[in-house]
């Protein structure tokens, strides 16, 4: 019962959506179901937000290591909830869009979330450089190709790359690093990308069929009830 009903729901919903593509009266069903997803996502976020609060309150209550930072996290979370849901500091008042320009909510996004997010990603530049130093050694043919392709793409996008092969005559323009980078992107890289994309497509089809036919059940969890 606990597993039969979800399996039936999955099989019926999946089959109906596949059939709907071939039946004009049902062709908008996909869009309707996407709307349901959006609504379910809000409730999932209730769960996620609740979990965040529970974990940090727990850490605070038990005075675990670095509990002081949990106060900051909780304060940030509730601060955004209050100014976003009650639209405090919004020039348009309660009826306005919460992300209206000049609102506290949007200003916090612009001056707190945005710099933090970009810096987090920018930080990866250092780690990628350090990782590539260790991993990219031309140990064999495949590794050499990978290294060369990355190197040409990187050089091809910089003024140094343009300068390096500027002496190559126009009749051999393909040998100029920027042109070579474009060729790599448009030919061998595209071929590899296509093989991966087609592979993913076939993988998705096979996994979808496994789910709809009830062969794949891992999403139900461990409970055998």
């Amino acid at each position, binding site marked *: 019962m*606990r597993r039969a*009903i*979800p399996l039936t*729901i*999955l099989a019926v*919903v*999946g089959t*109906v*959506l*596949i059939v709907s593509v071939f039946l004009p009266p049902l062709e908008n069903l996909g869009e309707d179901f996407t709307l*349901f*997803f959006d*609504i*379910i996502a*809000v*409730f999932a*976020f209730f769960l996620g937000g609740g979990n*965040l609060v529970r974990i940090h309150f727990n850490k605070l209550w038990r005075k675990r290591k*670095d509990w002081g*930072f949990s106060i*900051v*996290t*909780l*304060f*940030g979370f509730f*601060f*955004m909830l209050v100014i976003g849901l009650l639209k405090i500091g919004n020039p348009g008042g309660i009826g306005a869009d*919460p992300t209206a320009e000049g609102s506290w909510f949007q200003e916090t996004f612009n*001056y*707190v979330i945005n710099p*933090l997010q*970009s*810096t987090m990603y*920018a*930080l990866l*530049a250092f780690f*990628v*450089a350090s990782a*590539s130093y260790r991993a990219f050694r031309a140990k064999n043919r495949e*590794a050499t*190709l*990978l290294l*060369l392709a990355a190197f*040409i793409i*990187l050089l091809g996008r910089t003024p140094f790359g343009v300068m390096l092969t500027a002496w190559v005559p126009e009749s051999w323009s393909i040998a100029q690093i920027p042109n070579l980078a474009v060729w*790599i992107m448009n*030919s*061998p*890289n*595209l*071929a*590899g990308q296509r*093989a991966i994309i*087609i*592979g993913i*497509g076939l993988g998705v*089809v096979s996994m*979808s069929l496994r789910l709809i036919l009830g062969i794949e059940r891992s*999403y*139900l969890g461990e409970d055998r009830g």
Partner: protein
Amino acid sequence: MEVLFEHFRLWLAAFLTLGIFSFLYKDNPWYKLSEAIFVGISAGYWFVVLFWDNFYGKFWVGAGDYTFGWIGAKLSGGEVPSSSGIDLMLWVGAILGFLMLLRLIPKIGWLSRWPLAFIVGATAGLWLINYVASNVMVQVQATMVPLFSSTFGSGFDSSLGAIIGTIVIFVGTFSGLVYFFFSKAHTGAFGTTAKIGILFLMITFGASFGYTVMSRMSLLIGRIDYLLGDWLGMIK
């Protein structure tokens, strides 16, 4: 006052940017503080955006407000609200969403599998068709194009570069797919084709890596530009 706020915002963004960069030295309280702020504020931000966009904008405006208005009118004998533009089917989404919350009550937590099954089933149904159309059919069609002309039956209008490019793409895609076929041992002609596929895949990974490094570098330059330009005013 506005100037003071502008300075406060600039200093706050710079303080947080440097806080994250301080991790390059080692894990430290400044980094942990910036991280804690990031987690709390981001979670709150997306919670509010989802609430207003999806819950209010889609469910409440589309069905919730009308339903409660209708019940209220029936109970009090007042005027029933107009049902134009109302989609009561949205209640299905709301009920499934509510079932998801039942995960918090262990005794009936198993009911939360129903919305999960709905999401997984709908995703499987939608993706099965979409992926066949966009990831398989379109890509196969784009790979097998005429060698000597840009379109079928239009005569010879291609260049040597384009012909070589078409051959490279076809050979690369085919051999790459052969490499991903694991149901047959990679030996003989099949193995040789798979090896060619690996070479193409290596070039793809190298190119993707190069692009990733470029995008991260561009973000890094953006942050340094902010610190030296907007904050310190050293770059005009």
